């Protein structure tokens, strides 16, 4: 069952070569074997009732998957990797979980993460950081690190993550798999622990494009419990998935690419451009203000942390969560929150309190929201002429989270490390795809299309993937077909 796609597993289930329960048990056994080294799982889901699952024409029926541990699942432990929720069992289901339940899909475990999605290395977790299957000294990236790790290690065909800054797309490529961030509002956020609602979106990890389309088709659609989803109809991404056969205009920001300084990444980027040209696409250099790109991290930090400081205010231990009592009301609240959340989460919330303070609000929070609009309009202007924007995912592969970052305000850290967040600022859809293996570590490319152009992005990605494998461009077939065993 190792490393099979949804369609391959479905065929085995249809042929009754394995039952859904047996498949789920095999996956759990595999995860349990790998987890001491990889640390991708926070807890396992009871498999009660899986013996009654009937395999149907629905490709997802009987398929096992792993859920990021911040999606509400009724009566099933959901910790968000935070001490305060260590024993929390939600009393309701997230809509996206209900969609997967309706498809008879089998959740088998919850995945490690930076608590509440706050972080990019998966270190902000009470369980410790998720380890990269390619090199267990390195992180998977975050915040959806565990979700990336379990798909990369071959245990499940897909996992659900979330993407508030780049939390699906970056860990995906660090782990040599696909990461998809749908257009904001395409998937209901009801039951996704709220971190920064104007940025949050569920994400999907897979090892092929078909599987992204299958899962996205199942979980998208309007939901009256999340009114931001009511602006569109349900979409049928898998039914409408076909290899793009039209020449597209693919742009890259000159100001961004000039900042990358890793010759390996730049060489790979040039090879990917040549590959795209060989498919008939036009590659265009786009002028995009570097001053605007330098605002991406500031806009993100000010708005996201303001929203987060408000959303996490309900973590008091009164109605739910671990409670510590002091001498009075205030000391009880403080003791509970101090013990229940990490210093990094506290720091992020403190930024929010700073930005929302009356004397700072106009100059920080409101200004950030105005610059957000400028970024949205500038990006939409690019999309008037360009179908897809491309860039390397990062300036290097997965890294050791214990190594201190130097000069956090250099353009390399400020702009290059944060450029994927532009998709969250503008609500666009984005995908990251592994393209190269160098020194035994995966590297990849990101593509972004304008909001609600998810089908175009998937069809383009399908073309990209198919030709990549058929032509064995960059000798990647061996990379895709012989995934690394856990070291």
């Amino acid at each position, binding site marked *: 069952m190792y490393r099979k796609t949804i369609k391959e597993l479905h065929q085995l289930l249809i042929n009754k070569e394995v039952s859904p329960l047996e498949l789920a048990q095999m996956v759990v056994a595999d995860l349990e074997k790998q987890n001491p080294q990889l640390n991708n799982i926070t807890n396992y889901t009871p498999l009660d009732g899986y013996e009654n699952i009937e395999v149907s024409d629905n490709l997802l029926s009987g398929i096992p998957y792993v859920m990021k541990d911040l999606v509400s699942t009724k009566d099933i432990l959901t910790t968000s990797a935070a001490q305060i929720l260590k024993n929390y069992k939600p009393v*309701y289901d997230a809509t996206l979980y209900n969609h997967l339940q309706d498809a008879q899909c089998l959740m088998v475990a919850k995945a490690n993460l930076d608590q509440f999605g706050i972080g990019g290395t998966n270190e902000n977790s009470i369980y410790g950081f998720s380890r990269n299957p390619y090199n267990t000294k390195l992180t998977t990236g975050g915040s959806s690190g565990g979700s990336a790790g379990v798909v990369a290690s071959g245990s499940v065909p897909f996992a659900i993550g979330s993407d508030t800054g780049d939390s699906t797309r970056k860990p995906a490529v660090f782990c040599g798999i696909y990461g998809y961030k749908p257009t904001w509002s395409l998937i209901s956020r009801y039951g996704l622990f709220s971190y920064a609602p104007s940025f949050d979106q569920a994400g999907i990890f897979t090892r092929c494009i078909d599987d992204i389309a299958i899962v996205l088709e199942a979980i998208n659609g309007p939901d009256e419990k999340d009114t931001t989803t009511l602006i569109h109809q349900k979409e049928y991404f898998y039914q409408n998935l076909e290899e793009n056969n039209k020449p597209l205009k693919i742009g890259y920001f000159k100001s961004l690419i000039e900042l990358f300084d890793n010759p390996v990444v730049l060489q790979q980027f040039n090879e990917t451009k040549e590959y795209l040209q060989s498919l008939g696409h036009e590659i265009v250099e786009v002028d995009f203000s570097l001053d605007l790109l330098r605002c991406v991290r500031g806009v993100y930090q000010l708005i996201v942390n303001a929203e987060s400081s408000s959303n996490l205010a309900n973590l008091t231990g009164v109605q739910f969560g671990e409670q510590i009592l002091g001498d009075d009301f205030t000391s009880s609240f403080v003791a509970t929150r101090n013990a229940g959340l990490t210093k990094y989460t506290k720091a992020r919330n403190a930024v929010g309190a700073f930005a929302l303070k009356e004397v700072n609000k106009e100059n920080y929070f409101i200004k950030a929201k105005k610059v957000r609009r400028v970024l949205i309009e500038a990006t939409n202007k690019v999309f008037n002429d360009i179908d897809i924007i491309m860039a390397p995912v990062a300036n290097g592969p997965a890294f050791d989270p214990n190594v201190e970052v130097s000069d956090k305000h250099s353009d390399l850290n400020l702009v290059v490390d944060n450029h994927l967040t532009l998709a969250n600022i503008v609500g666009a859809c984005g995908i990251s795809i592994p393209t190269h293996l160098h020194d035994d570590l995966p590297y990849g490319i990101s593509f972004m299309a304008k909001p609600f152009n998810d089908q175009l992005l998937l069809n383009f990605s399908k073309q990209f993937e198919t030709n990549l494998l058929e032509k064995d461009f960059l000798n990647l077939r061996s990379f895709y077909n012989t995934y690394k065993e856990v070291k």
Partner: protein
Amino acid sequence: MEKDEVNIYLDQLYYSAEGEELAFITNFIDGVIEDAKHLDKVNIDNVLPADWPFDLEVSYLREDEVKDLLSCEQVLENASQTQENYVKYIKVV
């Protein structure tokens, strides 16, 4: 930023910190303030704040019907202390 000011924000959030943790949080806020200086270079005259990535024209009104109702037991099952169908907590006033 002075640590006293950071403590004001932590107080508002019902947190406290001292020593290395307070230094970490102070340093983190300073970093964001440094990042925010780049925002000053953007012309935002006559620009409206963006609350969402794109305009939401939701004109939908949900029917006012009771559904998905949680029982009292369900609501209270994650509470540390309960008494007679209420959450029990330390006296506030």
